[in-house]
């Protein structure tokens, strides 16, 4: 899916299979494009940022999101399906004492429906193997220095659940409204390799 792999072997293979399916009338190319467009329209970090901003301003939503994210997302017109099979989402909240970071050590599982395609480094062997072993050092290299007293949990998405980090609301943002707060949230914050 990432746009820098168009000439890779797997991309050629997928194009070949798609062409065969279309030639045999098993897949309608218009329907396929429509499903992909509908999916990708919401699959970008801005959607994840909206979820975070709402949780920062609405304690009820925050509680519902942490208890059952799939049930809470429709309140924002979002879902973990987007026309495809819905995946279970678990949102994990950072606090002053606890930090969460997400990885898929086996491959590249990622909440695509909310964040879009994952960054290249997320799929790299270096990140996948090192962040479970020494998250404090990896986060430091990525620019996030955590106090030694902060407990770190690394969530390895090894089965059917996808994980999203709810960063702590930055200090000094009391005057900001929900859209302005969403602007503060980055993709890396939603993975847990940045503070926000």
């Amino acid at each position, binding site marked *: 899916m990432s746009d820098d792999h168009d000439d890779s072997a797997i991309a050629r293979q997928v194009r070949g299979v798609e062409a065969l399916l279309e030639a045999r009338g098993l897949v309608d190319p218009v329907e396929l494009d429509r499903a992909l467009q509908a999916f990708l329209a919401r699959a970008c970090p801005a959607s994840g940022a909206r979820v975070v901003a709402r949780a920062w301003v609405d304690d009820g939503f925050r509680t519902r999101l942490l208890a059952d994210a799939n049930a809470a997302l429709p309140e924002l017109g979002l879902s973990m399906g987007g026309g495809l099979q819905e995946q*279970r989402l678990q949102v994990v909240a950072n606090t002053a004492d606890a930090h969460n970071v997400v990885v898929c050590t086996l491959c590249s599982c990622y909440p695509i429906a909310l964040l879009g395609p994952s960054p290249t480094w997320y799929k790299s062997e270096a990140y996948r193997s090192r962040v479970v072993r020494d998250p404090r050092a990896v986060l430091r290299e990525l620019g996030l220095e955590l106090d030694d007293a902060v407990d*770190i949990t*690394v969530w390895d998405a090894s*089965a059917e*659940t996808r994980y999203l980090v709810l960063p702590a609301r930055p200090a000094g943002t009391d005057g900001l409204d929900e859209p302005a707060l969403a602007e503060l949230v980055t993709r890396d914050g939603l993975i847990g390799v940045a503070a926000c």
Partner: protein
Amino acid sequence: MRFAPGDRVRTSRVDPPHHSRLPRYARGAVGTVVEPQGRHPLADLRAQGLPAEPEPVYTVRFPARELFGDGDHSVTVDVWESRLEDG
């Protein structure tokens, strides 16, 4: 469902000659069930094209010290019930 949040569990030590969703670093390790995640067919079987009945999957929290011998963080891994025993 065999396990509940807070239960101590041990992961399988088996190193199968096929795809497994139990990462090597988390084999034979003792952890604590965080919560059940619903029921899903075992991916190890599906990857071989074999039939698989849905079974409970649990998020299990392991201290880094248990997995790697040192470290002060925790790692959670999502594990199918048939890969767990009482810890």
